[in-house]
């Protein structure tokens, strides 16, 4: 291990669940992969839209990952709150997101990684969205 900090170590990612569904398998795997890649990951679990916004501000994060386990309108509300109050902080999402819901999120500028997405793909998205690599 090198003592020189990786650029990822300066990047903070907030991960939250928009629903009251406690399946943790997906977000935990993603958080582990992001931490292995050097990112600092803050997990806040099942929270309401305003709690995501508050945590994003308090923790001064560079990227927000939403785990979506319910109705798409709940997730859309969370994204809209984030975009209003945390301008410039990108959002990506995963979870049970059927195609119609994926399209709604993408229209808001959210990158969506549905089940079956591979970890390297998600890690490279995190690098790109935090400005560590080109588009």
């Amino acid at each position: 291990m090198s003592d020189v900090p990786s650029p990822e170590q300066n990047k903070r990612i907030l991960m939250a669940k928009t629903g009251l569904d406690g399946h943790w398998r997906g977000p935990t795997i993603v958080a582990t992969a992001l931490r292995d890649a050097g990112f600092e990951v803050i997990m806040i679990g099942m929270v309401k839209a305003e709690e995501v916004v508050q945590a994003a501000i308090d923790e001064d994060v560079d990227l927000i990952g939403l785990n979506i386990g319910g109705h798409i309108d709940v997730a859309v509300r969370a994204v809209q709150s984030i975009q209003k109050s945390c301008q410039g902080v990108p959002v990506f999402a995963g979870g049970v997101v059927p195609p119609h819901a994926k399209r709604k999120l993408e229209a808001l500028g959210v990158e969506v990684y549905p089940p079956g997405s591979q970890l390297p793909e998600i890690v490279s998205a995190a690098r790109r969205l935090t400005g560590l690599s080109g588009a």
Partner: protein
Amino acid sequence: MQSQTDSKRWLTASGIPLKDFYLPSDIPDSHRKVAETAPGEPPFHRGAYPTGYRTKPWRIFQLSGFGKPEDENERIKFLLEQGETGFLMEHDRNTADHLYNVDHPEVAARREDVGLTGAVMQSVRDIDICLKDLPIDSTYGHAGGAVVQHAPFALAGYWTVAQRRGYDLKRLPGTGQSDYFLTYLGCVTKQQVPTDAGLRLNADIIEFCNEHLPRWVPVSIAGYNGADSGLNAPQELGALFANAVEYLEEIKRRGRMPLAQAARACGGVSFRISMDVFEEASKLRAARLMWTQLLKEHYDIADPKVSNLRIHVVTAGSRMQYQQPLNNIVRGTLMGLAAVLGGVQSLGVSGYDEALSIPSEHAHQMSVRIQQILQQETNIAAVTDPLGGSYYVETLTAQLIERAWAFFDEIQRQGGFLACLDSGWLHQQAAENQHKEFLAQAEGLQQIVGVTDHTDDISPFEVDGFMGVDDAYDVALERLNTVRRERHEAGARGAMQALEQACRNEDNIMPAMMAALNAEVTLGEVGDIYREAWGDWATPIQT
């Protein structure tokens, strides 16, 4: 010896190394004698009953529910018309898992989620609507209450409806679940009672059924929920029996019912069946043998009526892929086949749209059809334990048993099943397996058709998931307010006080819960009583 023709290591899904082929000498000596027993004989690994499916086809038992109670009622009727032979009630998870009413701030903030994964049932009136015109006196029903803290409410609701319809509880068939693996391991709720309070609730249910509902399966340990979170086959087995030991020890400590009766009550369990056909079929064989062994060696119970484990299986939801979803019909068929080869009593096949939503009507119908094709067209129901005597399967069965007891022993060393949930040790085991599996996929060692391979599908999204209904929240809120307005308030208050009393002392809470449901006490009010009496579980993982 490893194959010389391929550098890939051949392993089972749980990591047991596999040979090119198996010979009689591969079967461990300790297992050889056992392998020669017949189905229906202890230690039962060859099957719970000698005549198998000839005399009793496995029950077609599909999880179902969404929206308003009447939406769920309609879907259950549809499934029964399609040939389902038992039915399950799924309660809305936002409200039921947390014991919140819909006007709880956590639920109201996500109102569109309400009814998405189960019907909202906040009072006995809702449960009555959900069960409208269903033959609950003669059909094996699952009352819901998969979650430990929700079970007393769900069961008391179902039983109250049955009583009001004039049915004798002594003859009522069915089950609940009250499963620790679900919300303490696989799908952790935001707020739930601590594990020791949950144990008390489950012991209360077991004792209450022993006295009043002898045909009811009071609790059903669901290894499924551990396995679909990451526990591998021997871990699922070891943890499931460590869980059973917690129930038996608690019943023994309380000393209010014969232990053999309690063992009988705990002997209806559920497992997950995933894609490794032979390991999974062997797992069910291993389970039956282990239960017989456990009861004999730890509790000196050898009555075959008690020690033959009955198994329900649900095929692995996590193996149903988002990409090219129609491929999942094949996966459901293969997992269903493995379950039948392993000798299940009851089976649910996940919907092909599992990765997208709860099942659409068509996905549900397919799950029933898969089972009907297996039962009626393949002739696999003709002979009990068709895998018995296979050098490979007998060896694998013995290897799984050995590894599962090692995991069981490790759990005991760490203070038992509940202690391993409280400490997060089981979560850690599951998470490590998940992580390894995803790394294996990334490295190309594990291939999934349509996901990591053969991804060039011409119409990847011919399925868009089930949309549900959009009025579940509004109707639930209106009905909640109606109950509050119309019920006999003094009666409801009295019932709540009695329930609170029962929670605080050592009485069985079920009589008070029955009275509370009858007095139209609501779900959220029961939750408030629990939270006041027992507080919250300190969740050992961050999600």
